[in-house]
C-alpha cells in the first residue's frame, strides 16, 4: 500500500527534511509515525498524498509512483486516499453534511449516490444527528469526525492522519483514535503521525520513529515482524 525506498527530501533553502527513509506499510496495517516537531512526519505524509515530490528515492502509494507521477494523476491518487489533519480543514460556510458531500461532488459523483453515502459515513463517525450543523457549532472532536467522514466517503484504501488528535482533549482523542482503529479493522491501511506517546504506548501497533529526518526506529522490523507482514523489512 505504502512503500518508501531510500527517500531524501531537501528543504528549498538547503538542508534535508528526510534522509534515506525507507519503510513499507502493508494492506490493512496500522502504524504510528512518531517523532518531535520538525522530525519529518508531515513531510512523509505530504509525499504520500503527492503534495510534494521526493528529491530522490521512490515513494509508492496505492499503486502510484509519486516520484514519477504526472500532475494529472494526482487527483486520481487523492481520491483513493483519506487524509485528516490537526486543524480539520473544514469549509466554514458549509454544514457537516455539505463538507462531506463536497469530497464526492468534486469527483463528479451522482446526487443520489452522494446523499446516501454521506449519510452512511456520518452515521459511521456518530454524527448523523449533527449533519446540518456548521463547523463553528461543533466541538473539536466533532469537527475531526466530520473530517474523518469526508476522508472516508471516497472509500479509501489508505488513510493518512497528520496529528489528528493534536487539538483535542483526552476524551475526544480517545473517540477519534477509536474511529481510526475501526477504519483499520475494516481493512484500510492507516498511517497516523502523532507525538502523543501515551496514545502510542496504550496499544501494540507498529511504531515508526523519525528523528531529524532519519528513520531511527521501526517496531515492524525490530520487534514484531509477523505483524508487519511480508513487506515489513526493506
Amino acid at each position: 500500500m505504502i512503500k518508501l525506498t531510500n527517500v531524501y527530501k531537501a528543504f528549498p533553502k538547503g538542508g534535508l527534511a528526510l534522509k534515506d527513509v525507507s519503510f513499507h506499510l502493508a494492506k490493512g496495517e496500522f502504524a504510528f509515525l512518531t517523532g518531535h516537531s520538525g522530525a519529518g512526519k508531515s513531510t512523509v505524509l505530504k509525499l504520500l498524498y503527492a503534495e510534494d515530490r521526493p528529491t530522490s528515492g521512490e515513494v509508492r502509494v496505492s499503486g502510484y509512483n509519486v516520484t514519477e507521477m504526472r500532475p494529472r494523476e494526482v487527483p486520481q491518487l487523492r481520491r483513493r486516499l483519506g487524509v485528516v489533519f490537526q486543524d480539520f480543514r473544514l469549509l466554514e460556510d458549509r454544514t457537516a453534511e455539505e463538507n462531506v458531500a463536497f469530497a464526492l461532488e468534486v469527483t463528479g459523483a451522482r446526487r443520489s449516490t452522494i446523499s446516501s453515502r454521506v449519510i452512511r459515513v456520518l452515521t459511521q463517525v456518530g454524527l448523523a444527528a449533527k449533519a446540518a450543523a456548521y463547523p463553528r457549532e461543533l466541538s473539536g472532536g466533532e469537527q475531526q469526525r466530520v473530517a474523518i467522514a469526508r476522508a472516508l466517503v471516497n472509500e479509501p484504501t489508505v488513510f493518512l492522519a497528520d496529528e489528528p488528535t493534536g487539538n483535542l482533549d483526552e476524551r475526544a482523542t480517545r473517540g477519534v483514535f477509536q474511529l481510526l482503529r475501526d477504519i483499520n479493522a475494516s481493512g484500510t491501511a492507516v498511517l497516523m503521525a502523532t507525538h502523543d506517546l501515551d496514545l502510542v504506548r496504550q496499544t501494540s501497533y507498529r511504531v515508526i520513529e523519525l528523528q531529524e529526518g532519519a528513520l531511527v526506529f521501526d517496531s515492524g522490523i525490530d520487534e514484531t515482524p509477523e505483524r508487519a507482514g511480508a513487506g515489513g523489512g526493506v
Partner: protein
Amino acid sequence: MNLVIREAFIAFRRAPLLSALSVTTIAFSLFVVGLFGLVAVNLQRALRAVAERVEVVAYLLPGTPIEASTLALKDIEAFPEVASATYVTEEQALSKAKRELAEFRDQYRELERNPLPASIEVRLKPGFRDPQHVEAVADRLRGFGFVEDVRYARDWVEKVEGLRRIATAVGLVVGTGFAVVAVIIIGTTIRMAVLQRGREIAIMRLVGATDGFIRQPFLLQGALKGTLGGLLAIGLSYAAYQLITRFLLQAEFFSPQQGLAIIGFGALIGFVGSAISVGRHLRRV
C-alpha cells in the same frame, strides 16, 4: 456541474463590489463600442439610401428641342448601366423645386422667368452605382451636344462612406482599449477571488478535485459577468439611442443579431479575463 454553477453564483454574493466593478467595466467598454457601432449602423443605412438614389442628372442647354431629348432618352435607356431615364421639363423642375425647397417659395414667386433648365435624370442599376461606372455614364452623357452639364452624387457617397469608416475605426480602437482594460479588471477580480479562496481550493485539491474542475466555476463566473456587462451595455446604448431619436434625429437601433453579438463579445471578454488569471494563479495557492 451543479456544484460549478452554484459556486459561480456564490461568487457574486461573496464579493459584490468586485463583481459589480467587473460588470460595469465590461458594460462601459461595450457601451463605447456600441455607441460608435450605432453611428456606423446609421451611416451605413444613410449610405444605402443615398446609393439607391444615385442618379446622374444631365442638364440640357436652354432651347433644346423636345424631339432631340426624346431620341437621346432612348439611347440613354439602352446603356447597360442604366435602370431608367426620365425627361424633366423646365416647368416640372420648377414645381419640384418649389415643393422640395419650400423655404425659398417667396423667391420663386418673384421670378419673372424660369431659371431652371430641363434635364434628364438617369438612375443606375444596382451593380453599377460605384464611382467608376457613374463616372463612365456621366462621360457618355457629356458627349451629347445639347447637354450643358452633368451632376451626380459621387462626392456625397464618398463622404458618407468616409465617415462610416472613421466611426468604425474609432469604435474599434477605443472599444479594444476598453476591452483590454475590462480583461485586466476581470482578471484582477478573479485573481482576488482565487486568493481569497486559497484555503478552499487547497481542500478541493486534497479531496481529489482536478484543476479543470476547480477552474470551471471561475470561468463560468467570468463569462457570467461578461454577459451581464453586455446586457447592461445594450441597455445603456438603448437609452442613448432613445435620447438621440427624441432630440436629434431619427436613427436606427441594433438588429437582434448585432445585440446578441455585443452580449456574446461581453461573455468572451469575461471568459478570457478569467481564463488568463485563473490559469496563472491556481498554481500559487
